[in-house]
């Protein structure tokens, strides 16, 4: 089944299954001896590559990826997403030279690292914070970018995480949203896609500024508390959390305290309490995995990993009534989070093209086996604020 997986901060993957009837003239061009360096471009509808031209197809695309493997004559072809351009899992990619040792702004670092191998450096990259970084190691640009983002404290909510806009092949600070299926908001584009239960009535998303474009979905929720922590102990310092409850029930509660001894020589003297409080705080809420399944055809155009989204499903505890959002003649109270990954079928009547390094285009739109079924989105940690004043952070530990 032809499908694409996009992952926040990762390369993801794409797979296109070819129809057995694919002409030899087509499959021969896919042989690595000739195709070597190429990328796949997927558009939401078919376009004529001759009339439109390679650059314009790229501009109209909802996805682009690196062509890297194939099986059989007319079997499947695939590869990773665009981040692999900057360095793949084998350490292959454009290399950043050694001897980096400086204090520069975030944007200046991006510029000097030449992170954008395609067209300059995006001016949307924030200038702050200022980062001091010393390394004498040679690495790929992607590795350098990861270290840089870590030093900057990047998070999908603070605009410091960087994305590749597959349409213009530039580095951007907001994930790209394709403009044809996404209704243009009337005023300023403040409307984030809102995931709602499948039975929610639709409403025309373009009608009012600030209204959310609704994506009807089936939610799947998974919660874990195996690492609930009551106290963390660092040396002689014990940090205690009030939430969750004191201990598991049964017997004498004091006997089953959930304590954790944190052994880390790098914790500076005097910081034990700070680190300890952070440790219990991280483990005070359930680990929450939220997925949504939707048959919306244009999901990959509207939601890219790292994008801010709204979720509203009270029966699954996804709500936050501090911010009403009018939708479909009713009020809704979504909680805000961000998309962590998407996996979507390459549906019938989408356009699939291979762009070779000489900018010629091979049109596979007639010869791929369309994917079917729902697109899946997984979400990162929502920030939750409730009317009763309790603020809690929920989500995958790795994303907090």
């Amino acid at each position, binding site marked *: 089944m032809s499908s694409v997986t996009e992952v926040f901060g990762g390369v993801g993957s794409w797979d296109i299954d070819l129809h057995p009837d694919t002409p030899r003239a087509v499959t021969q061009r896919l042989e690595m001896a000739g195709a070597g360096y190429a990328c796949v471009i997927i558009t939401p509808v078919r376009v004529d590559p001759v009339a439109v031209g390679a650059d314009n197809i790229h501009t109209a695309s909802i996805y682009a990826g690196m062509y890297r493997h194939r099986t059989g004559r007319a079997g499947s072809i695939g590869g990773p997403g665009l981040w692999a351009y900057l360095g793949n899992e084998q350490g292959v990619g454009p290399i950043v030279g050694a001897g980096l040792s400086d204090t520069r702004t975030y944007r200046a670092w991006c510029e000097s690292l030449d992170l954008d191998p395609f067209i300059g450096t995006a001016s949307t990259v924030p200038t702050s914070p200022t980062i001091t970084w010393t390394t004498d190691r040679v690495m790929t640009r992607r590795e350098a970018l990861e270290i840089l983002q870590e030093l900057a404290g990047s998070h999908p909510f603070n605009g410091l995480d960087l994305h590749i806009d597959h349409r213009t092949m530039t580095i951007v600070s907001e994930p790209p949203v394709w403009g044809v299926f996404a209704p243009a908001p*009337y005023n300023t584009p403040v409307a984030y896609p809102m995931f709602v239960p499948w039975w929610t*009535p639709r409403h025309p998303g373009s*009608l009012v*500024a600030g209204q959310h474009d609704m994506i009807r979905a089936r939610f799947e929720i998974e919660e874990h508390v195996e690492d609930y922590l009551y106290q963390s102990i660092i040396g002689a310092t014990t940090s205690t959390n009030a939430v969750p409850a004191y201990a598991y029930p049964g017997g004498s509660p004091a006997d089953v305290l959930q304590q954790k001894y944190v052994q880390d020589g790098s914790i500076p003297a005097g910081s034990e309490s700070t680190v300890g409080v952070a440790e219990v705080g991280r483990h005070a809420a359930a680990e929450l995995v939220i997925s949504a399944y939707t048959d919306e055809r244009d999901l990959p155009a509207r939601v890219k990993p790292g994008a801010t989204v709204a979720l509203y499903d*009270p029966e699954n505890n996804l*709500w936050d009534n501090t911010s009403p959002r*009018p939708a479909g*003649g*009713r009020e809704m109270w979504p909680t805000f989070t961000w998309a962590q990954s998407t996996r979507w079928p390459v549906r019938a009547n989408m356009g699939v093209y291979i762009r070779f390094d000489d900018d010629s285009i091979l049109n596979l739109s007639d010869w791929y086996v369309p994917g079917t079924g729902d697109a899946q989105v997984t979400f990162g940690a929502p920030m939750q604020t409730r009317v009763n004043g309790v603020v809690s952070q929920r989500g995958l530990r790795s994303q907090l």
Partner: protein
Amino acid sequence: MTTTPLAAGIRLGRMPYGILGNLETLEFDGEGLSMSGRVAPVGDGDRVATLAVRREQLLGLASPWDTTTQPIIVRDDPSITGHYADLSVRTDIDHMGSGHFRWQLSGRRLLGRDVPGHELHQVGGLRSNSHAVLVGSVSPWAAIPAAATEFFSGESSASSTFDLTRVSDTGSVGFYIYATGFNRRIAYFVCPPENHWDGAALITLGASLHPVTGRQVWDSDAATNSWRIGNGLVRVSQSATAGELLVESIGVANSTWTPENYSLRYDAAGSLITAFTTFTVLVNTPEVCSVRVGMRAGANRHRQLLDITVRRGDRLAEFTWRTDENLLGRVSHDPAEAATDLTVGAATVGIRETAGALPKWVIYTPAAATTDTVNGTIERTTQWPSFPFAIGMTNATDSTDDLRKYYLGVNECWQSLVGR
């Protein structure tokens, strides 16, 4: 002695008594039930049209969208009466030309016979408003049939009496106000099937105003077709003047409807909405019904939508009027009539009828509004693509302040039934 056949005494979901005809077969299989019958014959005239409506009503019972359970009442044989889940419906329509058709319905019987538990899920919050009204000064409420027993509000067991009982023309409704603000909560009650629809939100359609089941309508023409959305306390339809709203309300101590007409205007020139175009259902549950009515002004085809929402137990019908440009909007009582501003703090939240005795008509809006108290008009101060407002009547029990507090918070309710 004459015996009443099972004929007139069947009520499936929202379908009233007297139209489903004879119940002919009945089959139980574990928790499953299937029944079949033949609708009451329809005379000549609009025979096929009427039968088509009944067919659509039956098919709508199996709609998966809003309610997966339906009460089935067999008046003369209460042993069958109960709530049924996961319904599927079959109609044999080959005899429609001769005035009737056979129907067959099967489903799963909920444990608890006719009184399984009702869970009323709620989530809500402050309605976004320009009046600086905060969450502490609104009144979250929920309404259930007053005939319900074993009520648990979801917040405490100590105060489980209704704050109000409102007598609608489809039965009494218990009105409960939450003292602890908004939250996600689950209330519980038990209610006989006969009272399941007491004061329920209801969408009706066609010249004879047949209840709509599910989300499909058999006629989506809002101009020539009669349509109405209401809850037995307030109801909205189109007035005799095309493009005007007719909002009727029931006073506190009588069951007569007081009709009031309202016209809608938009843009700088004050263009008048002159016709309704389409009618579709957004939500159809006993707790809340929403419909979307398309509108136009003269030959202008520009997209104008009016979403109308009516909640069980509410004295106000809620409207959200939307279009694609900064054009909206103005609501005027028709004919022009003197009105008095309703304020909270320094903000104007609505207007009410000035003269005469209670009940008096009221219009509220959460948007910043300007009023014309000579003519009974309220409009959005800054024209905008959306204009939310609510229309109803205040009376001796429900003051204008009360209605404002009920309107500026929204407590969304939806019900699910659980076997015992």
